[in-house]
């Protein structure tokens, strides 16, 4: 593996990992909040 590939892997890893972690935290926050909000306020369900 050439040196350039380490940077390529780092760039892809940071992007996909960053978005993946953000998405996971977002879904968890949504689940937590929806437990304290009445069902009638969750209109998309």
């Amino acid at each position: 593996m050439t040196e350039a590939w380490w940077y390529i892997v780092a760039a892809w890893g940071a992007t996909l990992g960053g978005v993946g972690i953000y998405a996971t935290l977002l879904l968890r926050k949504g689940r937590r909040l929806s437990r304290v909000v009445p069902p009638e306020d969750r209109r998309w369900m």
Partner: protein
Amino acid sequence: MTNTTTPRGDAPSAPAPVGTGSTGTRVLGAVALVLVALTALYGLVISPPDRQLGETIRIIYMHVPTVSVAYIAFIITAVSSAMYLWKRTEFWDLLGASSAELGVLFFALTILEGALWGKTTWGTFWEWEPRLTTSAVLLLVYIGYLAVRAIPADARTRATRSAIIGLVAVVNIPIVHKAVDWWRGLHQGRTVMSTIDPEMGGSQLVAMYLALLAGLIVFVWLLIHRFRVAFLAERAADSGLEHAIEQRRVEGATS
């Protein structure tokens, strides 16, 4: 797991699923995952190295979509801010804030990818040259937008303050975009769209279009979820406030 009672202990209603997902977002999420997998296949395996950039073009397959999505996010924030100042509805306020947060995420990733690409191409992670400097300013301005939203205030004041910042901040985008034309610097002069057209061909072009499409679908999926989380947070805050007022009323009646 479902919750059939309200936080105020009302009678159970029909069971409601917990979370911000819906059939539409599940389908969109599945499409996004397939597109990301295809992008990785084309971007890392199938497409050949570029004649000029060599293997580092594979970083550009991430860099161009993330910056495009960040620009779209900030433009949505600006449009939502204008709409809020006109209509004064919660929808536009929450949409603008949700989009700004995603814009910050994608723009921070853009700068990180750019730094990694810069190290392999220029030999340095960072230079205070026009495109990079204006990009840093853009990121800081939108972090400021999010910081202003975090200042305790009533919903209307917070929304008005952030709408004004959201409208002003978008002026930075053309400055960042044109920085390579207006001032001399290290960053290449080609724009986002012209990077795609002239010299790429075959599987390189497929990789770039797939990456752009995947980035867009992922952004839409995230935006829907982020908006719903913001909406739930507002309802939870309202619910907590109503509960506190009710308790005070009961305490007042019994004393």
